[in-house]
């Protein structure tokens, strides 16, 4: 199953909220169960924070976070208690689970988004989503730690974590979504559009990297597939608009931009009959291309047209449609740059495209070899800057440019259009749209009330009693 940053954040915040509603009393054993997990939790948090691409070289916020989390990660925050008999207390499973999820998010973030410049809002939003649950964990551990002299230093460290986390938890949930939420780990064997797109991108990179396998058919196939990808992204974005997942005024310009890129890739994929570069396609690319097109047909099409939005949503197994469309555009943009570079090299570099000698016009080109070829009707190497070749090059260039522009527009839809609002310092946390948020009021929202009635995650200590099967947690 495809794991996305957004999906893992959902899980992290749900866990944190379950923890925040536990009735906790100080207990030395429980405190030790927490303390043993905290270095790993701090390390995973730091990894995730450091893997968010920074907008600037010097990031004071990150320096501050590092200075708070590093001592815990290095286990310098807690005195070694050699005189106390070591009780056999297992690590708290809920904190362990949070650590694993944070580690998973860190891994996903390390994939990054190629050629996307981080903006401060996206970074702040992601940091808020990472640190708000950590704040909850710190508060929980603080409530568990007995107030005795030897716990003074670790308690102070956790208070710092709680304090900095609270500052971030204060960011309204509506401002937090961003492009990084879309980053996904896709199992290559999965039968999904995401997997088909990723496999195709890998095959495309490989086919374009080897000169041996580069043929006109390879370049035409990649261009045609890019058109198919753009068509799929437009259809998925359209479905997201129709189903109310994306506002019409924000989604429509994206669809138009993607459609323009689609049209330009169709143009780039058709080579005139008079141009030819022989050779077979890379086998991997041929297979991935056929699989991509079949997956698009199976997932998004109904006969000779695009399927109904509701049908598309069902076939996507509940994935956020706009997010899938954005991932399609990330892949299309990456492949587009490689394709354009290959075409440039082909028409202006060492490689030579062949041209039908009979279609060659202009006295400049006429020499004995050309005359002979024309008489025989054979192919000859295309002269540099021959207009037909320049047209094919320009078509690829225009398509790549249009794809980059469409991708940027698409990325902007990852963020919700919400006006920021600030309130006074937080006194409690709430669960809004699947995210921990610090609030002034202690009155929980409907989703919060529902979650408090669920059994706690894992096998940790304390917590409300279970009351029947747990409903799924919506974002």
């Amino acid at each position: 199953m495809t794991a996305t940053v957004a999906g893992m954040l959902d899980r992290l915040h749900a866990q944190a909220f379950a923890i925040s509603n536990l009735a906790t009393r100080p207990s030395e054993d429980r405190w030790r169960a927490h303390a043993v997990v905290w270095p790993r939790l701090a390390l995973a948090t730091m990894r995730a924070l450091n893997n968010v691409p920074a907008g600037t070289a010097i990031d004071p916020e990150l320096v501050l976070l590092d200075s708070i989390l590093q001592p815990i990660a290095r286990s310098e925050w807690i005195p070694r208690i050699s005189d106390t008999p070591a009780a056999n207390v297992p690590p708290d499973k809920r904190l362990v689970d949070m650590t694993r999820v944070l580690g998973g998010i860190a891994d996903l973030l390390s994939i990054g988004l190629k050629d996307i410049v981080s903006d401060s809002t996206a970074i702040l939003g992601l940091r808020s989503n990472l640190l708000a649950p950590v704040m909850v964990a710190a508060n929980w551990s603080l409530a568990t730690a007995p107030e005795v002299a030897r716990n003074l230093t670790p308690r102070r460290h956790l208070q710092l974590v709680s304090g900095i986390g609270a500052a971030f938890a204060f960011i309204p949930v509506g401002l937090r979504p961003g492009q990084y939420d879309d980053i996904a780990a896709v199992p290559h064997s999965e039968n999904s559009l995401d997997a088909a797109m990723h496999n195709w991108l890998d095959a495309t990179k490989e086919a374009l990297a080897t000169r041996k396998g580069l043929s006109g058919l390879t370049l035409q196939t990649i261009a045609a597939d890019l058109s198919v990808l753009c068509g799929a992204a437009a259809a998925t974005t359209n479905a997201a608009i129709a189903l109310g997942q994306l506002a019409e005024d924000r989604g429509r310009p994206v669809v138009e931009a993607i459609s323009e890129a689609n049209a330009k890739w169709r143009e780039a994929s058709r080579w005139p009959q008079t141009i030819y570069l022989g050779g077979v396609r890379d086998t991997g690319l041929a297979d991935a291309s056929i699989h991509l097109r079949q997956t698009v047909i199976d997932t998004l099409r109904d006969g000779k047209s695009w399927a109904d939005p509701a049908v598309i949503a069902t076939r996507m197994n509940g994935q956020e449609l706009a997010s899938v469309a954005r991932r399609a555009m990330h892949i299309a943009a990456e492949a587009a740059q490689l394709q354009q570079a290959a075409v440039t090299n082909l028409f202006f570099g060492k490689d030579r495209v062949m041209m039908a000698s009979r279609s060659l016009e202009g006295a400049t080109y006429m020499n004995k070899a050309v005359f002979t070829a024309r008489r025989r009707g054979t192919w000859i190497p295309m002269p540099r800057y021959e207009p037909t070749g320049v047209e094919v090059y320009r078509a690829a260039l225009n398509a790549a440019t249009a794809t980059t522009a469409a991708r940027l527009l698409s990325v902007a839809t990852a963020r919700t259009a919400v006006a920021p609002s600030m309130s006074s310092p937080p006194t409690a946390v709430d669960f809004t749209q699947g995210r921990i948020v610090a609030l002034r009021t202690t009155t929980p929202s409907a989703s919060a009330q529902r979650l408090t009635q669920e059994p706690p995650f894992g096998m940790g200590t304390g917590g409300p009693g279970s009351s029947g099967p747990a409903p799924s947690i919506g974002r």
Partner: protein
Amino acid sequence: MSLSTSEAYGHLRNAAWHYLSIDDDGGEGVLLGAACLDVEDAFEKAEVIPELVQDEGSAEAAIKAALASLEEGNGPLVPALRDALVELAVRAGLR
């Protein structure tokens, strides 16, 4: 491979051009165009070099012309090429 096989390849290239020129976002044109490229790959594997041929005016006519050219073709790989073309013709609704 014979001249007729090269001509069939030439017609197939024209069919791909026509499908990829269909100006709509419905996606059917590009999918059929890409299917033509798949068949072109089979011609490349058979080491056929395309011939410049008269444009038949439409993708469907070009596919029919390619099939007609292959009827006169000979060689061990011609039946496989014909099968690939027939499959394309079926997909394009010509058969």
